[in-house]
């Protein structure tokens, strides 16, 4: 009875659990036994605060303990013997890479967790790895700078430093540091630009984890800025159709000839600004002479885009008005989607400058949107005609009231 009470108290956290208490209760959960075994683990006597940070990490989940990385003797309660043998208390950056690689570069060990074992090889190719491994640059990050030393969480965990929503801030810890970046001549405005970009808005505002973060373009362990001729390949990983059109067009040849920095000729890298519809023609003058034949193509593109956008906006408003008035607008919405698909296809075909195809697509957008507007105008006209009912209604009403008035006067004098 007393033991039961003690166990209940232990369960609600009133008293600490001892191994003696759980020995007679085989049904107790494994976690409780795990906690009890902590009491015999020597590292925790002095480093109790590390226990809290370590136990929420993925390594703790898989039974890896302090001595697996730091060595020493966890059964010892004397500082001297506990820190004896092959003990590595506070590894430096290089030692950290070696320590992590001892498991993470071993394909045999990583296979069971379905993890790649090539991080070290990738790290060697990265700018970070080159600085640390070849020059022993202490500014270069090591594994724990991004993954944390003790609270190591998988990328799927929202608390992890390498979760998609946290990656930009993790990189910004160094790349927003003006003093550190000065040494390497790297600007520090990438994070600010990224936050304002469509990619950043996808991550931060729309929680779209498919939106690219720093590592999507630069790589994670093999982090390096892509070369000029590689940029199209990098962007094409996501923008497949745009990439296909770009390769059909004249700008691809210019990129191959190093005359154009690929996608960055019109868009920026971290800001990834889309070209505004009314800025297409002006953008062409960055490379082409004003009023040249090439710039005239830009003017033509701009006019087509603006006309299509105006049509889409007007038809969307027309659909909203019809829906608010109670009309069934499923057909109109479908037609609007068709027009929108054509418009998006136009945005892709712009990259190939195939003017014939663009004219066809523009005609499709205009045809669909004008049909929607015509339907809406007819519906609005029918709604206006309803107001004519008020004429007979008020004629009859006023006649009836006048009759009642005169009759009452006659009756009551």
């Amino acid at each position: 009875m007393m033991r039961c009470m003690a166990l209940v108290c232990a369960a609600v956290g009133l008293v600490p659990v001892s191994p003696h208490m759980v020995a007679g209760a085989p049904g107790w959960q494994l976690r409780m036994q795990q906690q009890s075994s902590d009491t015999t683990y020597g590292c925790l006597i002095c480093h109790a605060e590390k226990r809290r940070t370590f136990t929420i990490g993925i390594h703790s989940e898989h039974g890896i303990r302090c001595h697996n990385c730091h060595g020493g003797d966890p059964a010892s309660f004397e500082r001297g013997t506990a820190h004896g043998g092959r003990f590595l208390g506070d590894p430096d950056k290089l030692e950290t890479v070696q320590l992590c690689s001892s498991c993470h570069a071993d394909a045999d060990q990583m296979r069971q967790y379905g993890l790649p074992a090539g991080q070290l090889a990738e790290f060697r190719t990265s700018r970070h790895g080159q600085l640390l491994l070849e020059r022993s640059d202490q500014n270069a990050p090591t594994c724990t700078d991004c993954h944390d030393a003790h609270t190591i969480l998988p990328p799927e965990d929202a608390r992890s430093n390498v979760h998609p929503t946290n990656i930009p801030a993790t990189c910004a810890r160094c790349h927003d540091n003006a003093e550190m970046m000065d040494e390497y001549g790297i600007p520090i405005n990438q994070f600010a630009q990224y936050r304002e970009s469509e990619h950043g808005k996808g991550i931060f505002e729309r929680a779209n984890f498919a939106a690219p973060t720093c590592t999507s373009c630069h790589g994670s362990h093999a982090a390096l800025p892509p070369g000029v001729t590689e940029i199209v390949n990098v962007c094409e990983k996501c923008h497949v159709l745009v990439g296909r059109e770009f390769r059909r067009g004249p700008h691809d040849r210019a990129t191959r000839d190093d005359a154009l920095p690929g996608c960055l000729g019109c868009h920026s890298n971290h800001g990834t600004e889309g070209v505004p519809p009314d800025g297409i023609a002006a953008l062409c003058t960055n490379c082409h002479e004003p009023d040249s034949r090439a710039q005239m193509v830009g003017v033509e593109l701009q006019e087509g885009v603006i006309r299509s956008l105006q049509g889409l906006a007007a038809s969307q408003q027309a659909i909203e008005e019809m829906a608010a008035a109670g009309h069934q607008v499923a057909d109109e919405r479908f037609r609007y989607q068709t027009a929108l698909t054509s418009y998006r296809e136009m945005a892709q075909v712009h990259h190939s400058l195939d003017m014939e195809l663009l004219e066809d697509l523009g005609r499709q957008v205009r045809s669909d949107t004008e049909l929607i507007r015509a339907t809406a105008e007819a519906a609005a006209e029918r709604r206006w005609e309803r107001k004519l009912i008020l004429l007979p209604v008020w004629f009859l009403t006023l006649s009836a009231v006048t009759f009642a008035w005169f009759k009452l006067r006659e009756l009551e004098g």
Partner: protein
Amino acid sequence: MIKKWLIQFWGDLRTSADAGLLGVARFVGLLYGPIDRNLRIDEAWRKALRYRLAEHVGWRHALGGITYVLLMVLVVTGVLLAFYYRPSVEEAYPSIQHIVSEVSFGWLIRDLHVWCANLIVVVALAHMARVFFEAAYKPPREMNWIVGLALLAVVLAFGATGYLLPWDQWAYWTVTEVLDAIALIPLFGGLLADAIRGDVIASGATLSRFFALHVIVLPWITLALVSYHFTLIRRRGLAPPMTAADEGGRKWRVSGMWVDEEPTGGRPFFPNHLLRSFAVAVLTLAVAVTLAILFPRQVGEPANPYLVPDELVSTWVPVDVSLALIRFTGTWGLALFSLLGVGLILLPVFDRRPERGLRQRPVAVALGAVFFVGFLAAWLAGQQIRSVPPTARPQPDVVGAGQVQEVPLPDLGPTPPIPNPEDVGREP
């Protein structure tokens, strides 16, 4: 036997024709002759038409009649809407679209229903204010005051249950907001909200319940209450003018349907008062039709439980009033105002003195004026307040430059104690 029946029939016909003052009554008399002999319905018709009202009964007494006309319009348009409306989550919204866009004059029927539902609240309150300030709630008519208030509550319940039926975003989230507010009432609020909702969120179960209440339960309650309201008007009579002493209603009380003695003074109900009511009813109908045509209720986006609208404009009277009171006077203001409303309901219980002039009962008149004017002002103000539904929660800030997110650490309790010496050496 046949000859006897024929003679009876001819006699009934003659009696009806002689006595009937209306063509309709004559025609009906042909049908219910045998019943009439026992129940004296024909005589009651004649008495009803000979019924005389006091001299002071005028235009302001038509307010109750207008309320009744609006109720009848709501019944007729409601039945027509029910022919086409389908009360299920999948079909409710498309059926409204069908009514509005494809059924002949469906748009007019629906908007007339919506506008009459709003107008009936305004007219009922005006009728109530007339009764209050003329002290018509005093004995012996106190029961009719209570019945009238019950009718007002039923009208508001009609509005609340009818609101969800279009099943658009506007309707869905307003009802969610109201149910959340009900759940905040101490003790029984949560239970009541769950019972009305029938699910963890407003869903098909809620729609079915609201539809059943709107077209089955509430109409029967209304029929019973309206019948009793009218019966009490006939049996107690209308209140005399405020300047005249109330004779206890004795003279008017005996003018019920089954008493032979009829008053001879005053103004005849038919055709004088009926003409007044007719003129006002026709005007009311014309106003309702005009509002329905010029300001149709829009059909919003279909209800989506996963998408909380950014803003929600409530158009249900009690929500408007509560919002305005909370905004301008705080929750205490709402509580005091509600207390004032309850006080007015129970007024006939406390205020039983015979004085009926406005100056003779300053406290009651002042409280009533505060309530009615306050209600009207709060309603108008409430319509201007845009309310955000309580389910909308503020979004967390985006992580900014240099603001690296801290990893939250769970509290794992106190650190383990130093172990017993005998445990030393065990494998961790």
